[in-house]
């Protein structure tokens, strides 16, 4: 018994009717980007057909309508993550830009040579490269929290790592391992050491109930496209005291209060950090995606994912025994739905290629986590990831296609 009526959900996603190589599409790559329900597509289309105009600038009716819908989307995002105020939700292109904003604006005005930032070995490049750039430019020390052989963060040396550190940048859930980190605990340790905490919430906001207040973190980054929303929009949440004190990042229209030939003053939050024409239609689509998830209920989303992940882990083990290695925790309650694996003797790319022949979409590669891949000692893995529109039939299709891959590459 699933907590979600997957058949009904599937019907809302037109792309799932697609046939690939003679097989119905089995989309198992939502961790890279999720598909969009008709409700999201229609909300965006409706804006364009009825009320599209640039926001915050026009006195006329459709500009007012577009502005109101745009800000209503911000309010929906704030509510969805449990943010205390909409002033703290900055619309950006994606989580990557959100993390870079923190690196450019907060870190470059608060960190000096010799300061330390703590990352973890399971971070996505989005939460690695901005800090590598900063480290090189400013002589900042990067410290890496290791993972254990059970694919979870090794907390033993945490206090030592955090000693005198200025920031802990950590993912809420790994896009490779599925591991869910204990953010409140990490935040407590970091704050006790005097470090702020940036949470990469890309893989948690779409899948888990998010309560930013309970996390007590300082910065949180996430993207719409992984939670049924459109591409081209994401957000940074940050405490308003921090945002108030931070210098602006991108300069231009919208983020200013006044401009002269010799200087400028910044607009109030959240607009202070939004320069130029924003992703207007995309904000409206994001709102519809949030409505969709809230209608399902995030508790139900989570319960469904735990159940299907459990089924998938079981099916992979049962069918491939010691011919498969799964990189990630075995307990479905301790992890998200991204399942990384390698079949013996077959490269992840080749697996993916054969799977495509059966309409099964999985990701192959380093999943933008090369430091982690080096720790795991593999150049690439295959990754199947599940979402609200996947059911046990999809898992069965995966298993059957994997068997064909084994046959095809058998010596």
């Amino acid at each position, binding site marked *: 018994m699933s907590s979600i009526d997957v058949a009904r959900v599937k019907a809302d996603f037109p792309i799932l009717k697609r046939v690939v190589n003679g097989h119905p599409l089995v989309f198992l790559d939502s961790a890279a980007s999720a598909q969009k329900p008709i409700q999201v597509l229609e909300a965006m289309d409706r804006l364009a057909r009825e009320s599209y105009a640039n926001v*915050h*600038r*026009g*006195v006329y009716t459709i*500009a*007012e309508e577009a*502005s*109101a819908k745009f*800000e*209503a989307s*911000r*309010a929906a995002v*704030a*509510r969805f993550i449990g943010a205390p*105020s*909409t*002033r703290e939700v900055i619309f950006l292109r994606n989580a990557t830009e959100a993390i870079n904003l923190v690196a450019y604006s907060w870190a470059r005005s608060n960190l000096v040579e010799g300061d330390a930032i703590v990352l973890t070995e399971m971070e996505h490049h989005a939460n690695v490269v901005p800090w590598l750039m900063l480290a090189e430019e400013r002589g900042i020390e990067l410290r890496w929290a290791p993972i254990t052989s059970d694919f979870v963060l090794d907390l033993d040396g945490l206090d030592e790592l955090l000693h005198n550190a200025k920031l802990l940048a950590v993912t809420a859930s790994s896009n490779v391992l599925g591991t869910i980190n204990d953010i409140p605990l990490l935040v407590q340790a970091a704050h006790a050491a005097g470090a702020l905490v940036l949470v990469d919430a890309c893989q948690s906001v779409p899948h888990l109930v998010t309560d930013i207040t309970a996390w007590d973190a300082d910065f949180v980054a996430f993207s719409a496209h992984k939670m049924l929303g459109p591409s081209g929009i994401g957000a940074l949440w940050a405490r308003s005291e921090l945002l108030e004190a931070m210098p602006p990042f991108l300069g231009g229209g919208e983020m*200013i*209060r*006044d401009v002269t030939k010799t200087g400028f*003053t910044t*607009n109030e939050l959240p*607009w202070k950090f939004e320069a130029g024409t924003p992703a207007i239609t995309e904000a409206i689509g994001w709102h519809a995606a949030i409505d969709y998830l809230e209608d399902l209920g995030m508790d139900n989303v989570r319960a469904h994912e735990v159940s299907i992940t459990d089924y998938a882990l079981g099916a992979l083990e049962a069918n491939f025994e010691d011919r498969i290695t799964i990189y990630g925790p075995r307990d479905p309650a301790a992890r998200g739905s991204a399942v990384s694996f390698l079949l013996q003797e077959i490269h992840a790319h080749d697996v993916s290629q054969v799977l495509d022949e059966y309409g099964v979409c999985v990701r192959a590669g380093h999943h933008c986590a090369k430091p982690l891949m080096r720790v795991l000692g593999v150049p690439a893995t295959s990754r199947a990831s599940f979402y609200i529109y996947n059911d046990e039939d999809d898992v069965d299709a995966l298993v059957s296609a994997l068997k064909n891959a084994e046959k095809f590459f058998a010596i």
Partner: protein
Amino acid sequence: MSGLEDLYREIILDHYRAPRNRGELPVPPAVKSEGFNPLCGDEVVLYLDVDDGVVTDLKIAGQGCSISQASTSMMSAAVKGKTIAEVRQLTRAFKALMSIHESKLEGEQDGSDLEDDLKGVRLGDLEALQGVVKFPVRIKCATLAWNTLIQGLDEAT
């Protein structure tokens, strides 16, 4: 044109055409306070004389649309001679009149005790600005003077 006539009441156009308290005051003793509407460029400049907890004089400069200019003029007439406590209460009441809609526009969630702010305060002529709430973008025009006033008071006290 009922919407328009609701926005541009006669008394508003009157304040726009013949704004009260235009001018400047020597700084110091007066405090100068400037406000901008970042979206349209409207400017309000206030000169405030505060003496013994009372707004003894105030002058206004700057430029803007009929709503921002009329609101500034009406504000100046309403607060002159009032104590700071009275002025702050009046400001709260005026913003309550506007802010249900302003906060909606900005997506704020709470609007809990707005009703309370309105209770027992006589807005008088200022109530003519109520039509603005139907035109969300113009609310910022109407509240600009009041935000600038509070800024000035914070500095003066």
